[in-house]
């Protein structure tokens, strides 16, 4: 009736392979969309060149980039370039576009990883404790804080934070990078909204897990409250939480556009805004593909985390 169980490693490998194939198909779809969007929404020469470019310059541009060739040929060439890691030159920085994007993406990746680690850790502890005594003082306090956190716009917090901590108190630098102190404000501001959202999800999921039958069993075994919350209930409650953590992390990886811009943080969000304004389309396209790839990888990680946490998914 039940198929013979695979070994754990075998099952995981099959699982990863299946997900990787699905991700690859999505990536190809994205590639098609990005390419045709930039070709079909108008004349690429008009799009790529400055507004004041002359007709002669545009013709030269078309000739240089093979824009007069049939569309499919252009697409084949584009895919060929992308596969070999060639996204063209950045028109403004005179360096390979991919190099520019990866440099910015590294900054964003660090920002996202540090922020999400802090957020996830804090939100899981706070949400779990709030759920343990649902309706109690700590629960109401954390609900209030998380609700405010999830609702307040980040550009406002960012500006207020600069005014208070950088301008008035002069404890922290206003913008840029260079020292550890430069990281504190962007991380703190980016922390607030995902923290508010994830605390609420953890709390809801934990209330369900704590009222489950297996928790009753654990109490009948004499297990103490600590392990009941963090060993028995939490692992079961993590599945919906991981989904939301993934969503939030993805939006940070996409580039925290506003926060990066306000704090002059050289991440991929700021790079994208700058490149769009400067019509540096090779960089924009490279940035889109790099962040998309990162998000696909992260979804894969989330699926893996699911399978690790819940043995029923592995089968």
């Amino acid at each position, binding site marked *: 009736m*039940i198929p013979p169980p695979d070994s754990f490693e075998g099952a995981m490998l099959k699982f990863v392979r299946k997900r990787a194939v699905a991700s690859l198909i999505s990536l190809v779809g994205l590639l098609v969309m990005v390419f045709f969007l930039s070709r079909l929404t108008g004349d690429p020469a008009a799009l790529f060149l400055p507004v004041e470019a002359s007709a002669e310059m545009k013709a030269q541009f078309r000739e240089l980039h093979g824009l007069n060739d049939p569309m499919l040929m252009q697409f084949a060439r584009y895919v060929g370039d992308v596969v070999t890691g060639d996204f063209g030159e950045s028109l403004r920085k005179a360096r390979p576009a991919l190099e520019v994007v990866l440099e910015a993406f590294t900054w964003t990746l660090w920002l996202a990883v540090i922020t999400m680690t802090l957020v996830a850790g804090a939100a899981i502890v706070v949400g779990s404790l709030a759920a343990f005594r649902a309706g109690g003082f700590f629960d109401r306090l954390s609900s209030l804080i998380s609700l405010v956190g999830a609702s307040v716009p980040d550009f406002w917090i960012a500006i207020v934070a600069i005014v208070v901590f950088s301008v008035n108190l002069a404890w922290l630098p206003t913008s840029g990078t260079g020292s550890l102190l430069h990281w504190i404000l962007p991380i703190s501001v980016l922390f607030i909204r995902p923290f508010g959202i994830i605390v609420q999800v953890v709390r809801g999921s934990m209330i369900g897990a704590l009222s489950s039958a297996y928790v009753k069993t654990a109490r009948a075994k004499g297990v103490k409250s600590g392990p009941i919350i963090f060993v028995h209930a939490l692992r079961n409650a993590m599945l919906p939480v991981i989904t939301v953590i993934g969503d939030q992390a993805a939006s940070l990886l996409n580039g925290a556009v506003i926060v990066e811009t306000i704090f002059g943080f050289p991440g991929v969000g700021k790079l994208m805004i700058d490149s769009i304004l400067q019509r540096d389309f090779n960089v924009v396209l490279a940035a889109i593909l790099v962040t998309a790839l990162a998000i696909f990888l992260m979804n894969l990680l989330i699926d893996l985390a699911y399978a690790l946490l819940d*043995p029923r998914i592995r089968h």
Partner: protein
Amino acid sequence: MADHLLEVRDLSVEFHTAVGVVKAVRNISYHLDRGETLAILGESGSGKSVSSSAIMNLIDMPPGRISSGEILLDGADLLTMPAHERRKVNGRRIAMIFQDPLSHLNPVYTVGWQIREALTTHGTDAAKAASEALRLLTRVGIPDPERSLDKYPHEFSGGQRQRVMIAMALALRPDLLIADEPTTALDVTVQAEVLALLEELQQETGMAVLIITHDLGVVAEIADRVVVMEKGVLVEAGTVSEVYKNPQHPYTKKLIAAAPGKGEMHAPAARAEPVLSVRDVRKRYGSFEALKGLSFDLMPGETMAVVGESGSGKSTLARILLRLDEPDSGSALWKGRDLFTMSPAELYKLRRDLQMVFQDPTQSLNPRMTVYQLISEAWVIHPDILPKAKWRERVAELLVQVGLGPEHMGRYPHQFSGGQRQRIAIARALALEPQLIICDEAVSALDVSVQAQVIALLDRLRKEMGIAFIFIAHDLPVVRDFADHVMVMQKGNIVELGTVREVFDTPRQDYTRALLAAGLDPDPDVQAAHRAARLQRAS
């Protein structure tokens, strides 16, 4: 006063809910000695599980509140004990097993981990816990115990999961084991095995057992003494045979009288032209063969009981006959026409003749529809049956027919008890004037006294309206009271098919005999004889 191992004195528990204070148990007292088994017998809502939750400190406060009483374990009051001492009691001195072992085992940890945790929580070191876990799993009869330690709960069968729960509960050799409906969710043969295991382990360890159940058969099989609860009050107490043979309280009398399996068996009329003729029905799901070629006939106005254990294919058969699922091959002639080859339009007309009543009326009745809407919905779908002007009158008639009244028409399902809801579901099935009703465990979820009433209702409908029934059930005494013919299924095959008298009095197949032998009789003397016979067979 430390004579008894456990003494519950004058215990009252109330729950403060949005609609007011519910007094779950009121001033109940009982006691339990070492090596003894006490059963708490009661129906749903009787409060039979509340006192054990209080013993285990499992009542959430708020909303719960223990308003009076004490619970003495060897003379020490568990309710006033300091928290650090209280914590040492659960798992070490008192352990508990529950009705539904799948939901009571943590799905994301291996069973080995969960058994070891029971030990390490109370100070056993890890190496000792590991060897103990293996010994325990072996002792409760889990096959291949070494590898099973690393398996997760979902990889075991229901009976095995309950064995795992027992291994976990007995890890520290507690003085008292509380078992809350431990076999209710299990098949009858598995139930017998689990109860036998509990009895064996009790003899080995000398522990006391407090068993909570609604089943007189379980009481007769395992208990020395019994207390009967009704609506939060303890109405009767005594030894099992005293209470069974000479019940004092009217409620106890009613419970014993309602126990199925004692009535006159049906003597079906000679068989003539079948209304339904099933031939060689097969169905497989992947590599699993659910039905391996079933054939049988059903006469008009006849009840065919389908019995068998989980996985035997009973429910698959019901789903296929209603075309909720498609068979792989075979035919089912309904008045000469094959159900399986009918077009959707023909099937739509036929739905009138074939109706179904499900196990759980709470789930099968839309909670946002009134009783009137639920019953008259059939005529919305089949408008030619009855003109709209007559709907009200007919709904009222149907309600009276199933033992409810016209005044119930405007109410919603949640305003009724489980038994009443099942009557509504039956009224809804009757609205289309069907000729066959398929009941899938239609009375399994009901209390014994309600069960008897619903069975009586179905039998009356069969006689008065000539409706045929396919009655899927795992509860043999109920089948004995209601069926004309019985079909015993095992692993997708019909192993025995005959009149109810043939199957119950002179079963031909070993499997049928095993099923019948595993069934529990409410009479403690009969059950004692069964047990003696079983022990003799074993030795």
